[in-house]
């Protein structure tokens, strides 16, 4: 009986003219939150690469009478890469018009690691004139090829000579 009192001829959507949504609090929240997030945003992520120096370069230079065991070494020159173990040069890759063959170096390092059953240690011996970014890239390549412990050293101009 009472239900009939609320019965209308028009549907409820037509009874309300328009929903007047107040967006002011939302806008206030946006205006506060966006400058805060912009100020806190990190657009460049920084990371580190850890490395070691060869034992004869450190402070303990003369403490060990034993000759250090030769480790697989990547020689980085201005126009070549060389993969060396002791006095033996296993691979040599040339740099064409300033473009270093990093992909090829990675493949060669992977195969050399398997063939020579090398451990996870590698030394990067770079010539003085090589830009630091190339040395960092070679460190990346070595890690990708499975060499976890990367050491930095320097190479002499004469490839047949010993590293410093």
């Amino acid at each position, binding site marked *: 009986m009472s239900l009939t009192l609320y019965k209308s001829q028009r549907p409820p959507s037509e009874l309300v003219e328009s929903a007047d949504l107040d967006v002011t609090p939302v806008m206030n929240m946006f205006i506060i939150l*966006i400058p805060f997030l912009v100020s806190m945003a990190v657009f*460049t992520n920084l990371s580190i690469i*850890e490395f070691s120096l060869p034992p004869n370069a450190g*402070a303990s230079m003369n403490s060990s009478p034993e000759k250090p065991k030769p480790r697989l070494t990547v020689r980085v020159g201005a126009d070549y890469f060389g993969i060396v173990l002791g006095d033996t040069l296993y691979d040599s890759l040339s740099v064409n018009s300033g473009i270093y063959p990093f992909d090829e170096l990675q493949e060669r390092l992977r195969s050399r690691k398997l063939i020579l059953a090398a451990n996870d240690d590698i030394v990067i011996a770079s010539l003085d004139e090589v830009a*630091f970014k190339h040395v960092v890239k070679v460190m990346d390549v070595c890690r990708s090829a499975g060499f976890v412990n990367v050491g930095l050293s*320097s190479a002499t101009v004469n490839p047949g000579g010993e590293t410093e």
Partner: protein
Amino acid sequence: MSILRGMANAEIDGTFRPQLTSLIDVMTILLVFLIKSFSVDGNLITPSDDLILPVSSSDKRPRQQCAIEITGSAIIGEGEIIAKINDVAATDSLLIEPLFKWMKMKSVQCGDSLKGRELMIQCDRELPYSNVKKVMYSCSKAGFNRFSVLVIQEE
């Protein structure tokens, strides 16, 4: 069109109601993007403005430790110029005397002798390796044996 409608409404009831839908859309997209790129940790290390770090695929997070900056013009430690790059490049000696003395002084603060002393190198990507080599040599002579290099993480 909506502006005209708003103006027409303003004429009828005396109030101007701007259409905020598109603005809220933009704000929402911006908010989602910023929340996605938000890092709670932030950057613990702020590299010097006058050096461009090399790019690397390493994802190891940097931590607070002793650092040395090698820019195109100078070797800087804690904001203090220790040696000029031109002077370093001009000499054949691997040992940079002022850097060695400074690092020797700082070495006590940068770890103990048992665990090893750590140093983070921030170096400009275009600098020749000879400068980095001299810095590393001088620091290792001052007792540092664990090194890391700060890089920009590759996307």
